[in-house]
């Protein structure tokens, strides 16, 4: 029952071949056996998971399941607030924080009958691309334990890849779902900004953050997204648009669709295995009836710099709340400023401090226009270029990352780490949607991701193309070699 997609589990529940309780027990046992080596989880909620599984079992027995996710064992990135369950954002400053409420996403997943297994590891406050910079411990890539799973949602990606969750959720601010999905050989989707509520999600950069699913296949991704998408009055940036039945649209195929191929996403220094796999994937899509056209996104080369102004600026403001007063760590001092400064120095890790400093500097008097104002204008150019491309093509296809998973400790220099997100960041700056779907392996046996980007709110078409590709290939049958 491990490595079965959620829709297959639901079929087995319906037939009575499997029960949610037996599946939850199997997953918890596998976590016990395996997670000492992968370290995907920060918190396991065994009793809650079993109680939710028993409830689900009763519903399936009574013939009243709540839908395709009822009884699905899932993992949540530890930035999604869970009522009564510690939520750390991967930071020592929130080591003991127990939220008094559920994030909207969590509320909707519980209502759909999902069985939450636990909270997964991440780079502290989602700042990173490797899950090495968690305040607790690094997570390892199930395909090669000496390598990183990507990040920042590396824990959820690794859990799904290793069969320690049937599906999962993460957040994507600059690629933090798509990049670890590519590195771990699973499907990962960043919805349109505003498609999924951010209420109850620990904020990194509020104009970029978006919650989305990790899945073993595209069908599961459609179900997981469908369960959480939609307007939420508690998030003023949530879009009041109806949610299509994503799963029902999947089988429509790509015949007649036009795919845009951006030259700027095939750069010097990228891994030749990645380029080969992505170009082969595009040939597969052509074979299925899609047309391919070249598109130009020239501001791509400035997107990274714009992002590394906007993100630290927003983060420095969001993280001002961790001051040792209302929740989280406090380090005592005789005056308030001393208490705040010592608390933040003790509670935040090096990368978080670096970005808070950078963001505060970029927003400070005399530099605001040169950095923040300029970056916001470059952001407009990135949006315009995508809009112009999407006026001609239905979808854009590209690599998710320039390289496959790297070794732990390999990227010590912050800038070389930032370069990992060069193909995913433009999607966040422009607010569009995108998915990473497995499209092969490097010569060394590491997974490669194909990125499919779509117009705002065009998740159905993005998923449909990903599904067509997935069904035409056999990558999803490959699993990491873990006992």
């Amino acid at each position, binding site marked *: 029952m491990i490595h079965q997609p959620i829709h297959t589990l639901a079929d087995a529940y319906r037939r009575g071949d499997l029960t949610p309780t037996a599946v939850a027990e199997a997953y918890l046992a596998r976590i016990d056996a395996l997670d000492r080596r992968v370290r995907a989880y920060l918190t396991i909620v065994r009793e809650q998971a079993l109680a939710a599984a028993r409830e689900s079992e009763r519903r399936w027995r009574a013939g009243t399941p709540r839908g395709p996710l009822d009884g699905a064992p899932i993992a949540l990135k530890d930035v999604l607030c869970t009522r009564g369950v510690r939520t750390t954002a991967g930071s020592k400053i929130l080591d003991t924080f127990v939220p008094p409420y559920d994030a909207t996403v969590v509320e909707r997943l519980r209502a759909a009958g999902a069985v939450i297994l636990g909270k997964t590891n991440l780079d502290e406050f989602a700042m990173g691309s490797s899950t090495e910079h968690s305040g607790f411990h690094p997570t390892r890539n199930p395909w090669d334990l000496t390598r990183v799973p990507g990040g920042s949602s590396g824990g959820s990606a690794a859990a799904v890849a290793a069969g320690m969750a049937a599906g999962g959720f993460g957040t994507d601010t600059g690629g933090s779902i798509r990049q670890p999905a590519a590195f771990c050989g699973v499907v990962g989707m960043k919805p349109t900004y505003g498609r999924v509520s951010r209420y109850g999600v620990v904020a990194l950069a509020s104009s970029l953050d978006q919650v989305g699913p990790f899945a073993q296949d595209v069908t599961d991704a459609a179900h997981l997204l469908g369960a959480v998408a939609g307007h939420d009055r508690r998030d003023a940036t949530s879009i009041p648009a109806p949610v299509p039945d994503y799963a029902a649209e999947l089988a429509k195929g790509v015949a007649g669709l036009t795919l845009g191929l951006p030259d700027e996403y095939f750069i010097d220094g990228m891994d030749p295995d990645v380029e080969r796999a992505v170009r082969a994937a595009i040939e597969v899509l052509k074979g299925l009836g899609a047309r391919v056209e070249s598109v130009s996104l020239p501001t791509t080369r400035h997107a990274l710099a714009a992002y590394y102004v906007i993100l630290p600026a927003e983060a420095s403001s969001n993280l001002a709340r961790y001051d040792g007063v209302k929740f989280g760590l406090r380090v005592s001092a005789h005056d308030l400023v001393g208490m705040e400064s010592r608390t933040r120095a003790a509670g935040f890790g090096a990368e978080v401090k670096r970005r808070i400093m950078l963001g505060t*500097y970029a927003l400070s008097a005399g530099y605001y226009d040169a950095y923040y104002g300029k970056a916001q*204008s470059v952001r407009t150019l990135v949006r315009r270029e995508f809009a112009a491309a999407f006026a001609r093509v239905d979808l854009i296809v590209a690599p998710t990352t320039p390289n496959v998973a790297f070794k732990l400790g390999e990227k010590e220099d912050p800038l070389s780490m930032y370069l990992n997100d060069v193909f995913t960041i433009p999607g966040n700056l422009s607010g569009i949607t995108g998915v990473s779907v497995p499209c092969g392996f490097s010569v060394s046996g590491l997974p490669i991701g194909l990125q499919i980007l779509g117009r705002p709110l065009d998740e159905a078409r993005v998923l449909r193309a990903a599904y067509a590709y997935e069904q035409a290939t056999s990558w999803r049958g490959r699993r990491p070699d873990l006992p």
Partner: protein
Amino acid sequence: MIDRKDVEHVARLTRLALTEEELERMREQLNSILTHLDTLRGVDTEGVEPTAHAVDLVNVMREDEVEPCLPQDSMLANAPDRSGELFRVPRIIEE
């Protein structure tokens, strides 16, 4: 280029008590990152309005109605220090 004084100033603004070693490393790393960010100066953004948000929603309004909210105790439960219904902090104003 930012110098040691700038770094100390920003550390004060952000309420981060950094060690001597951290301040020095921060100066080096921030300069290296800022050198990269300075490539933005080469982009022609003359007349290009800034984007603060990717969604064209402004001023989302709702009725101002009283609704149930989380109980006070649950909001105080995570406080590092409290006094009755209050968050307790070190003295701010001298007697």
